């Protein structure tokens, strides 16, 4: 299996960047997901790796082989699309054997390789069927088998589960991942679905606006997003973001109407204090010790965004905790419930994972704490995450 290396690979259509220069190494046997909203450049990047799209500049290597200007068929890469392009007049077995026949492989080699992939995907019972008799998932399995049978150096998959319904996607997601573990084939997988990316990727390349925002493991992009885009895009719901102002180790937040939020359209631009009782705003969060030097150095007296995941909130006793909010809505999610809490305004809603036993009416006051290990900070001006070392991450 091959290592894929992109060096300063970019794509322009006229003056418009479809993909800004990317440096990326996909290691042999790795499963890397290109993730982002539609139009972010992920599919163009994949197509440049495959050779279906030419690069405007930069180099692509398969191991040490420079493939930038090679024809797709010369790259020994298999492509799996969202829409399974099976030959309708051939049976599943004939479809799977087709690439080997086209290469002129010997009959017993074909037999042997087809049997291997058929056993792997457990599709023996489908072999005599024509594609129009197959379900969506089975078609996708046959399409996978057909790409596997060639033993390519790498797999490129473009939203292969996009056309399937939710239930089936979940099952196929696990199947593709298990197949990958079994084969250890270098795989680049494109999706707009962050859950799919988290579940499948060894590493995730988050893209937006033709640019790579972050490359990291699922845990890294989830807990340590590089910027607000990644924080919001990853997670369901996305990371909770609280707008406040830092001074002397404390972040002052809206709440109890003593801080007001300045709003432009749907996005908050700034919060500012409104005179409260004794002139002291009521809602504040004491920044964890480990973060104070960085906050002090970079954002003293300035606006700051606190970021935390729903499971970082600790609701032990609803009358204790640093942060004060009220219940906006609550959801039952089967294994747990998700409380949606408002801090001062309906534009400042945080989502908090809680036990299903905690049932609270809308409007009920609630207090909660944050696990200090799981709190992050962002600079609203640059939208980038602060690093504990004091430099922008």
């Amino acid at each position, binding site marked *: 299996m091959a290592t894929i290396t992109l060096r300063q690979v970019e794509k322009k259509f006229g003056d418009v960047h479809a993909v800004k220069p990317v440096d990326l190494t996909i290691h042999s046997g790795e499963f890397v997901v290109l993730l982002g909203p539609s139009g972010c450049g992920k599919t163009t990047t994949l197509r440049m790796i495959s050779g279906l799209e030419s690069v405007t500049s930069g180099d692509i290597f398969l191991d040490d082989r420079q493939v930038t200007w090679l024809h797709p068929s010369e790259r020994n890469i298999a492509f799996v699309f969202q829409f399974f392009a099976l030959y309708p007049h051939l049976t599943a077995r004939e479809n799977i054997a087709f690439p080997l026949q086209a290469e002129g492989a010997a009959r017993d080699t074909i037999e042997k390789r087809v049997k291997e992939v058929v056993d792997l995907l457990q599709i023996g019972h489908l072999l005599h069927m024509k594609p129009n008799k197959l379900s969506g998932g089975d078609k996708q399995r046959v399409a996978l088998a057909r790409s596997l049978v060639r033993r390519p150096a790498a797999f490129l998959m473009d939203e292969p589960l996009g056309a399937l319904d939710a239930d089936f996607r979940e099952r196929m997601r*696990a199947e593709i991942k298990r197949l990958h573990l079994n084969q250890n084939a270098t795989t680049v997988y494109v999706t707009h679905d*962050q859950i799919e990316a988290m579940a499948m990727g060894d590493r995730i390349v988050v893209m937006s606006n033709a640019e790579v925002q972050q490359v990291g493991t*699922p845990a890294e992009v*989830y807990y340590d997003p590089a910027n607000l885009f990644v924080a919001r895009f990853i997670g369901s*719901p996305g990371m909770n973001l609280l707008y406040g102002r830092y001074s002397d180790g404390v972040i002052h937040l809206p709440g109890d109407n003593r801080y007001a939020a300045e709003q432009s359209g749907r996005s908050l631009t700034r919060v500012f204090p409104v005179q409260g009782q004794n002139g002291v705003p009521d809602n504040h969060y004491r920044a964890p010790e480990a973060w104070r030097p960085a906050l002090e150095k970079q954002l003293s007296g300035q606006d700051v965004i606190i970021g935390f*995941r729903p499971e970082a909130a600790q609701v032990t006793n609803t009358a204790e905790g640093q942060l004060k909010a009220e219940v906006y809505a609550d*959801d*039952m999610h089967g294994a*747990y419930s998700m409380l949606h809490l408002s801090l001062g305004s309906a*534009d400042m809603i945080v989502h908090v994972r809680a036990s299903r036993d905690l049932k609270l009416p809308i409007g009920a006051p609630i207090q909660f704490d944050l696990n200090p290990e799981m709190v992050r900070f962002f600079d609203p001006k640059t939208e980038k995450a602060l690093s504990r070392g004091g430099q922008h991450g």
Partner: protein
Amino acid sequence: MANVTLQNIIKRFGQLTALADVSFEINNGEFFVLLGPTGAGKTTTLRVIAGLERHDAGHVLFDGEPVDHYTPADRDVAFVFQQYSLYPTMTVYDNLAFPLRSPLRRTPEPDIRKRVEETAEKLRISHLLNRKTARLSGGEMQRVSIGRAIVRDPRIFLMDEPLSNLDAKLREALRVELKHLQKTQDSTTLYVTHDQVEALTMADRIAVLNQGRIIQVGTPDDIYDRPSTMFVAQLIGTPGINLFRASRDNGQLQVNDSPIRVPVAASAGELPEQFILGVRPEDVQPEPEGAFTGQIVLIEPLGVETILHIKAGQQTLLSSVSGMTSWRMGDAIRFDIIREHLHYFDPASQRRLLK
């Protein structure tokens, strides 16, 4: 707002029976969700309540009064559909005002202004009032569609998959908004969806519909904790419930082809020899001293939770744990099964055993 009752509704389209004896009651102020797969009869039920479809037998009652022969207009219902049916050349304000300007209602303009502004505030679209709807994003358009339904005070809101055209992030945000709105307004709402997450998270009560029949009616807790059939058990919950063939053997429950043996609870004494055992993924929990051993064959970190696929004997169990984990593929793992939450089903009828 009204209380709505369906009594033994039958609806046929030619040879096809779309609704076979559907009965349920939506209480005043309730958020009632009809959940089922495509073709279950959800939209037909909604259209029968609206009067857009005439049923072949049975009755629809609003506050105890039969409305079977009322026209849709006389039933005074408000719709929100999947497709936003807004007037593209009108402003948001005029779209919201439209239902109030109907000749039937003759609302004075100052009252209209007040209602429109209140509604816009609730849906947080006040800043969009002067915009033409053609210039709005999908999420904004759906907010306006919802606004146009709630701007007046109908007897019931009928919503047919209103969020399914939106992307995941918007859907989540609007789901929370809709629920907050419904709870603070106490409006009677019938909400149709095929998405079990929407049903669980929004409903006061859910009716599960399949092939034109009501399978179960209950609160999200009831449906999740005590599914009446295997169909309901599998329909609800992500990741899906684990279902295993199991048997009763010497005071133990034995999961076939696996080392999993659980002492029989007193109540399980009446189980047949062979049955289907259901275990929700959150009831399979890694424990250092756990009674069972297996191997992790797949890890799916989803963020707020992680799904572990654990192979034990010939069976693979899904286990869901909170947050991200440090488990690695191939690890040996000890786990327990939380016995208080086991589900038993009859293999033939697929019905729940031991209520």
